[in-house]
């Protein structure tokens, strides 16, 4: 049942020593699950954290923790420096012009909700349209749906082609003067598709339309340059790039951010408060109400340092090799159909198997030590688009190995045997 393995191929697909070294920096990767070595292929849901990031967070708590911004004492100054230092790291990481454009949020979801409120509430209404792609994560759908309920703006769906690429012709045809915003992810978590964000943002800009890019699946893998992409808003999460949960970033263009009303109210986002009048603080603080995720920002900064400490082109190329290898090996599994076969893809493989429900696949794979996600991946409209209820998804990071892909394939073959699946 297994495909013939030529000598040449075996050599080509040997996991490089650099990757094996990297693996050792991630303690969780040497865990066992059901007495099998863990093959963690659920990176699109959340990535794992290297020891260095954990140590930075612990050191922060052991030596520097305090509330930020308001204190005259040493610890408060140190915490503020670390917190603002991390903001500068994020700025450089995404090539933003100015740290005022880097707003800490609790995650991508919070960032997108911020836009839907602070930009949306006052900018759209009846007669206006917001375009949302058919491959969006719920985080980039539900806030717009709720905005539509508040304001009467209409949501229209940019269709996708069978291979999971955005239908750019349909998109262009939809760009009539009623369109106020276009909401698209950089990389689809359900399909792996890498969208032509620069082109999309350019088409928007020509027409005075705001581009809202969900970069949750992109920042940990691609090199993101928000100035080169020239997008209006860009959102992402720490936990999808080897940093902590509880933190995310909203990047925005200054004129937009300047004109927006704050979203959450509280300490730090105001300059002065009386019961009659409140003056908002300047950027980025206007959008950072209350005690921010300080330790998490420091952790995100450490994750960025970690990524910058490696040759990111090498890591990206290696992930692409994992993707090709997975495509090849999984094609050997009887009854398996890929969902999402765009030419430009991140290392995400979604598939269905004839007569076997993904939930059963997931459980059996787990029994073999293979961690994959099954379900709708918070992207129900994608499932509806393909007329399926759910998929099984293996999503890779640079610390995965060719051997783990083999482990996945072997486990899938067991599923086919148990359920008697044939092509």
């Amino acid at each position: 049942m297994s495909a013939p393995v030529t000598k040449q191929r075996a050599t080509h697909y040997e996991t490089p020593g650099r990757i094996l070294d990297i693996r050792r920096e991630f303690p969780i990767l040497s865990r066992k699950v059901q007495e099998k070595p863990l093959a963690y292929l659920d990176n699109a849901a959340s990535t794992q954290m290297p020891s260095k990031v954990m140590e930075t967070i612990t050191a922060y708590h052991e030596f520097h923790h305090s509330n930020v911004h308001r204190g005259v004492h040493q610890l408060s100054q140190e915490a503020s420096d670390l917190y603002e230092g991390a903001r500068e790291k994020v700025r450089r990481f995404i090539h933003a012009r100015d740290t005022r454009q880097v707003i800490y949020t609790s995650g991508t979801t919070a960032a997108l909700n911020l836009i839907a409120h602070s930009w949306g509430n006052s900018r759209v209404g009846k007669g206006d349209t917001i375009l949302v792609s058919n491959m969006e994560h719920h985080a980039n759908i539900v806030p717009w749906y709720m905005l539509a309920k508040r304001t009467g703006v209409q949501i229209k769906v940019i269709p996708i082609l069978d291979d999971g690429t955005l239908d750019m012709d349909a998109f262009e045809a939809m760009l009539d003067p009623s369109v106020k915003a276009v909401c698209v992810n950089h990389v689809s978590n359900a399909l792996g598709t890498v969208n032509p964000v620069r082109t999309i943002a350019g088409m928007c800009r020509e027409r005075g339309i705001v581009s809202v890019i969900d970069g949750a699946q992109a920042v940990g893998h691609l090199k993101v340059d928000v100035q080169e992409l020239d997008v209006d808003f860009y959102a992402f999460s720490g936990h999808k790039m080897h940093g902590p949960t509880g933190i995310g970033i909203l990047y925005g263009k200054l004129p937009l951010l300047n004109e927006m009303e704050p979203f959450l109210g509280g300490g730090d986002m105001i300059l002065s408060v009386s019961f009659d009048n409140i003056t908002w603080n300047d950027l980025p603080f206007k959008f950072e109400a209350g005690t921010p995720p300080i330790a998490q920002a420091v952790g995100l900064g450490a994750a960025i340092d970690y990524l910058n400490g490696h040759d990111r082109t090498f890591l990206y190329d290696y992930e692409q090799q994992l993707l090709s290898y997975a495509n090849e090996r999984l094609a050997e599994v009887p009854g398996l159909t890929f969902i999402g076969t765009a030419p430009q893809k991140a290392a995400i493989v979604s598939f269905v198997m004839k007569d076997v429900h993904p939930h059963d696949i997931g459980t059996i794979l787990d029994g073999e030590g293979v961690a994959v996600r099954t379900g709708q991946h918070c992207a129900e409209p994608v499932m509806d688009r393909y007329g399926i209820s759910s998929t099984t998804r293996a999503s890779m990071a640079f610390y995965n190995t060719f051997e783990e892909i083999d482990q996945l394939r072997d486990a899938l073959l067991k599923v086919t045997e148990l359920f008697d699946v044939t092509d």
Partner: protein
Amino acid sequence: MLLTNRTKNLYQEVILDHNKNPRNFRVIEHPSHTAKGHNPLCGDKLDVYLVLDENQTVQDVSFVGDGCAISKASASIMTTIVKDKHIDEVRTIFRGFHDMATGKIEADEDPKLRRLRAFSGVRDLPARVKCATLAWHTLDAALKDEEIITTE
């Protein structure tokens, strides 16, 4: 084929069989009771149909829907079990099944659960308990005249 014991326990022959050939997999046109069950975690959806006679005994029962092997087999086996039983007894079995699936009692403690023992493997898999019990929850909801039931 080398499968872990957990997998073998879970996917027993009887479950695989009912999954492949579900019994009473059809719509009843004029049910006395019906409900929709939904497990949003895995997308399982099923409709349960019931016809009770005047003595509150199950005259006919069926289901349709889409789900994993565990939920489909559970629904199928459920229809074969509850047929001709009084609803009080159905509820007692459901309670027992629920306790077994969540590990509160052993599978062999209750003779009524004999034909449901195949599902005892889910106790090691909290995420799958809801698959095994969805059909029963839906049946229970139908008896209570609730129209949509969600487990997760």
